[in-house]
């Protein structure tokens, strides 16, 4: 699974730390999600999508091997 959190953050102009605080996780967790090392739970994915005011599908995308 890939995501475009980094792009969405740039559009909204917020840092990893600010996004982390908004969804109550650590900055390290946001960093690992952005670099595709960690797949967030559905709850966290929904929370992140809510921060950007978009649907989950617009931010998280399935890849061929998924």
């Amino acid at each position, binding site marked *: 699974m890939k995501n475009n959190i980094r792009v969405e953050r740039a559009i909204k102009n917020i*840092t*990893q730390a600010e996004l982390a605080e908004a969804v*109550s*996780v*650590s*900055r*390290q*967790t946001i*960093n*690992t999600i952005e*670099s595709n090392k*960690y797949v*967030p*739970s559905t709850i*966290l994915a929904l929370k992140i999508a809510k921060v950007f005011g978009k649907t989950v599908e617009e931010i998280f995308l399935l890849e061929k091997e998924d």
Partner: protein
Amino acid sequence: MKTRFLFPNWFRYLGLACFLVHIPIMLFFSKYHDMDSKASGLLSGPHVFFIFTTLMVTVGLFFFAFSKEKVEDEHIMQLRRDSLQWAVYFNYVVLIITLIFTEHIEMGHILMLNMWTLLLFFIFRFQWCIIRNNWSANKEV
């Protein structure tokens, strides 16, 4: 995030203190007291001392291993579970190798060692994951 079966964050320092305090006690007693004295029984000096120091190390490591991080989230929880699994695997490999390749060793020593190795492997793996995450997160900023 709600977490179960974890001690509060400050238990980490309590655990570290237990572990560190036992070292001077151990050094002092082994220098000034005869640990191999003939006294035996559950309430004899050497036995009580042995139990006291062993428990201090074990409880110290236990508190250190299973206290909450400053920010507890699902990723930390996953790292903790992975580390625990690795620790169990590694511990059994070491245990089996020890059993195969040692002769005339007292089983009590293996038991003692085994009491700590699982916790130590877990602590090392978990802390290493956290340090690695911090590095890569700090590179970003």
